[in-house]
């Protein structure tokens, strides 16, 4: 009851010193915002990593031309269909090694409607290797490859964009200069863990892709599926040796391919987020501590400016403890309010991140608690000394003009 009245007094005097109150809120606000962001981003990236690993499959490799950072480096021409065959036969644990060639931004047209899509050249093993389902029509078959047929499977987004409500099966779309017959529709898959639209694609036979579209002899990637997850590292190492031998790479030359394992994927996401994490944590700590120092400076100033007020309160019956509590609650109320504002800023920044960047921060209740509680603690910690000074004053000294 008394505490409530005194906190009310704290609110009253914070209201009369708005400028100072805002200054005291500032540091904790930014600090809490950064803290809330870092926790959400970390949570988001760890969830993102989990779902990436999950969708990648836990018993798979990806072999990419280039340095292994996706997307594959298309200027590297050493990865071949024969490599895929050799890999498939190299180890009893390997279920399938499915080669593919990818090109981005190829224009597709049907009766005047255009769209730009990534096009994938694949073999029939592509379907089990990548877990794709064909919802209507048929898939890519061995016949399509041997005859280099101009047929394609169409993703749901592409279908909507160029066919609208029309049934695409049996229709001919124009891809570059040549017409391709749509033989099947890919089942809807939504967005990938990294945010890309999986349904915006066209799939054609690998041979057609190599000879008729891209006019190259190489592939951009090989997807390797194992029968079981054990021995993953050994097999990855064996494959690396195999490919180095086949590509005639001698030490100290670097690999001209990269093997991506589920482990690499999780390592990659962790590395990306840890830089950001450090940055945000440093921001949070600097702002919170800096804000704390500001709070202390302003409160000390307040105490010396308001000596007279302290004297008056003491004269009408305030104990040392009452004065301590009042000044402490002024500090705590303003830093906590700062924390709440920081929470709002953090939520705003999270929204912006979701829209503008690939990061997917996940809102966590713990983060708010941490943000607000930390700002509150900053108020207690840095308000204590000024409040103690205020409480220590003798009434008569405080009342002297």
């Amino acid at each position, binding site marked *: 009851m*008394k505490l409530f009245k005194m906190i009310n007094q704290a609110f009253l005097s914070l209201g009369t010193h708005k400028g100072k109150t805002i200054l005291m809120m500032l540091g904790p606000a930014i600090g809490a915002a950064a803290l809330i962001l870092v926790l959400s981003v970390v949570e988001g990236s760890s969830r993102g990593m989990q779902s990436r690993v999950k969708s990648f499959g836990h018993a798979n490799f990806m072999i990419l031309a280039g340095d292994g950072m996706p997307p594959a480096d298309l200027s590297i021409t050493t990865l071949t269909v024969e490599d895929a065959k050799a890999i498939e036969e190299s180890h009893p644990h390997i279920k399938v090694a499915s080669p593919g060639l990818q090109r981005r931004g190829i224009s597709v047209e049907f009766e005047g409607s255009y769209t730009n899509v990534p096009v994938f050249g694949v073999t029939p093993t592509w379907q089990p290797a990548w877990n794709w389902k064909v919802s209507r029509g048929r898939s890519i078959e061995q016949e399509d490859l041997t005859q280099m047929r101009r047929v394609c499977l169409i993703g749901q987004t592409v279908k909507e964009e160029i066919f609208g409500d029309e049934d695409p099966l049996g229709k001919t779309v124009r891809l570059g200069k040549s017409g391709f017959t749509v033989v099947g529709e890919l089942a809807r898959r939504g967005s990938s863990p990294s945010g890309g639209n999986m349904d915006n694609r066209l799939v054609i036979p690998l041979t057609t892709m190599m000879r008729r579209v891209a006019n190259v002899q190489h592939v951009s990637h090989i997807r390797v599926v194992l029968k079981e997850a054990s021995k993953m590292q050994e097999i990855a190492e064996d494959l690396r040796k195999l490919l180095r031998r086949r590509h005639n790479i001698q030490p100290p030359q670097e690999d001209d391919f990269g093997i991506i394992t589920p482990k690499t994927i999780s390592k990659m996401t962790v590395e990306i987020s840890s830089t950001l994490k450090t940055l945000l944590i440093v921001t949070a700590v600097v702002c919170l501590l800096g804000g704390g120092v500001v709070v202390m400076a302003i409160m000390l100033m307040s105490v010396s400016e308001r000596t007279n007020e302290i004297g*008056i309160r003491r004269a*009408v*019956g*305030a104990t040392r403890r009452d004065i301590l509590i009042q000044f402490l609650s002024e500090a705590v109320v303003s830093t906590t309010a700062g924390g709440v504002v920081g929470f709002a800023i953090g939520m705003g920044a999270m929204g912006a991140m979701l829209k503008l960047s690939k990061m997917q921060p996940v809102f966590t209740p713990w983060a708010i608690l941490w943000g607000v509680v930390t700002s509150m603690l900053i108020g207690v910690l840095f308000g204590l000394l000024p409040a103690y000074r205020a409480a220590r004053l003798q009434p008569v000294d405080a009342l002297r003009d």
Partner: protein
Amino acid sequence: MIHLNKINKTYYTKLQESVKAAEDVSLTIEEGDFVALTGASGSGKSTLLNLIGCLDMPDSGEYRIGDAEVTSMDDEALSLLRAETFGFVFQSFHLLEGLSVEENVALPLVYRPEFRPPRSAMDILKSVGLQDRGDHLPNELSGGQKQRVAIARALIGDPKVILADEPTGNLDSKATDEILQILEKLNKSGRTLVMVTHDDEMAARAGRVVRMEDGRIIQDSAKNTVEKKEGDEVADGGAKGKEDA
């Protein structure tokens, strides 16, 4: 009810000079007394009043209120005395500028949440003629009005003793008269009043005049004693006090 016995208080200036602001001060004040503390500026009047009101603690000596020994009390008990027993009125009003007149009057209640004041802040403001100023800010009032707010604040806790340190020192003669009348009325209704003034004419309105010099009480009209040699001027004041009594 108030017994001071050989109270001493020495202040130290920044230059480490010591000033004996109260020296062997002994004083007894009974309930219902109207005591004027007079003396030249710097003679120790405020020091004594602050010691009585527990705003300051003596270096040595005994101080009893009723049967309670004040010098051995802790902060909690002293604060309670200031809240319950004393009401303060200062020369420079000492109102909180950020609070309204009514909030200023009610300020003491913040620290005594369990206390039910016999009269509300507005009632008391009415009794000092400020019923329509409750929601004003102090700086919208004249000096005399501010001092009436301060008196109202001193009264909300229903104290036995009013301690006033030159309450009219910043006021013109009309306001001075108003304030004195209010204080006299309070005394007549049974409250003990101790008022510091260096104005002999005002002191003369008190039932008892205590005169100080250099931290000592040199004359007390209740005892009719003159303790110092420079007697003439002092005896004069004492005589006046006696006449009025």
